[in-house]
């Protein structure tokens, strides 16, 4: 019970976020209408992705400080779950954009070229590409210790380069996406008070779910590691 309180919290928060997200009142904005409820899923995915990637980098730093291989397994699992969250963020964003941004006179996919140029999408695409590259790098090194070291170095280097880019690119290009001057949803005035009641619990819930999946993967990896080293 002491150890599993956060899993219970995760289920409770997600249940609240899903039920409340569908039933609770939302502000009426003509361009968005009911699609505004996607905020509870789409934006939460990005939050969870960034938090999970950050956790992954922290474990990479810990690995380089201690050279304990279990930290490398943790860094990998958190990056993997972060990547899944990022792809889900893309999926939910694509559905949202199809109803709000896409040109209604053409099929939705015809607008892709102009939508993909969005600075926020570019930033997200860079984060996802970096972590795809991270996994390809991991797979192309065969020696276990060397793989752990090289991928930890790349993880830290790329993450440190990603942050200035997420900060710079939106200031270079025009955008339709909310939150032009800085980071959307971090600013308290951006979101209506009624939505905040669901939004913040949803962020915490989805992040906890990601961490939960990651810890399961880590436990499996550590068991597998033990089995192979004993065999």
């Amino acid at each position, binding site marked *: 019970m002491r150890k599993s309180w956060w899993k219970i919290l995760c289920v409770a928060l997600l249940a609240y976020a899903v039920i409340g997200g569908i039933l609770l009142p939302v502000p009426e904005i003509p361009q968005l209408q009911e699609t505004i409820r996607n905020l509870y899923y789409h934006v939460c995915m990005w939050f969870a992705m960034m938090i999970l990637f950050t956790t992954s980098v922290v474990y990479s730093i810990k690995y380089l400080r201690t*050279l304990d291989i279990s930290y490398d397994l943790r860094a990998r699992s958190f990056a993997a779950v972060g990547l899944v969250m990022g792809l889900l963020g893309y999926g939910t964003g694509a559905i949202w954009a199809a109803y709000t941004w896409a040109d209604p006179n053409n099929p939705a996919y015809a607008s892709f070229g102009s939508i993909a140029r969005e600075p926020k999408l570019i930033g997200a695409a860079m984060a996802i590409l*970096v972590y*795809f*590259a991270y996994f*390809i790098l991991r797979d192309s090194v065969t020696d276990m210790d060397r793989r752990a070291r090289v991928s930890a*170095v790349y993880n830290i*280097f790329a993450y440190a380069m*990603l942050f200035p*880019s997420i900060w710079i690119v939106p200031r270079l290009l025009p955008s339709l996406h909310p939150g032009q001057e800085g980071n959307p949803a971090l600013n308290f005035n951006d979101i209506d008070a009624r939505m905040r009641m669901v939004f913040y619990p949803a962020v915490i819930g989805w992040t906890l779910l990601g961490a939960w999946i990651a810890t399961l993967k880590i436990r499996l990896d550590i068991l597998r590691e033990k089995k192979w080293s004993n065999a």
Partner: protein
Amino acid sequence: MLSLSTEVNPRIDKPHNLRLQAVISLFRKDLLLELRQQHALYGVMLYVLSTVFVLYLTLDQPVAETWNALFWVMQLFVCINAVAKSFLQESRGRMLYFHTIAGPAEFVIAKVLYNLLLMAGMNMLTLLLFIAFMGDPTDSFWLFAGISCLGAFGLSLIFTMLAAIASKAMQQASLMAILGFPVIMPQLLLLMRLSKLAFSETFAAGADLGIVWLLLALDASVILLTLILFPFLWKD
């Protein structure tokens, strides 16, 4: 030799003082090797020449915007090809020898300096060939040359670190491109924006200098990260 391979944790290394002499000798070694085994250098030069020639045949005189975009993409590929070999050419035995005579910081600083020189040269060559074949849409050649030098420095700094990472894995050259593209994007966007200065586009007061400072700050952070992270790649 044997005692070296048993040192696993890089933290065991005492932070010894940086010896300038070692940096200079390693730098000279790279330069001498390049001048003696000229095929590698000529290889990159030929790569530049044939790519520009292909562009010339397919496009002949592009408008300024296309010219600018092509120039920077070209610069990116030249950089990958020129810098990739800096760690590729070092065999296992030679790396072991470097371990006995120099520290990681000295080694990587020498590599960075050498790659900066190499990219400065390749940058001028690309620029001259571009102007010779595809016309000169710039209003101020020297301004564009200066911006392209700044860009070449930034690219070679980032790709030196990525070459060091990729040299530990298989299929280095293609891996370098995968690792590098998402990381290099913001620099490239900034450079393309800045180089519009040379096409006499007006900027808001101070915006151009702001971009230059931003690029220099990025370069400085790359150098810092390289110095912190390279020692972990050094020990094997």
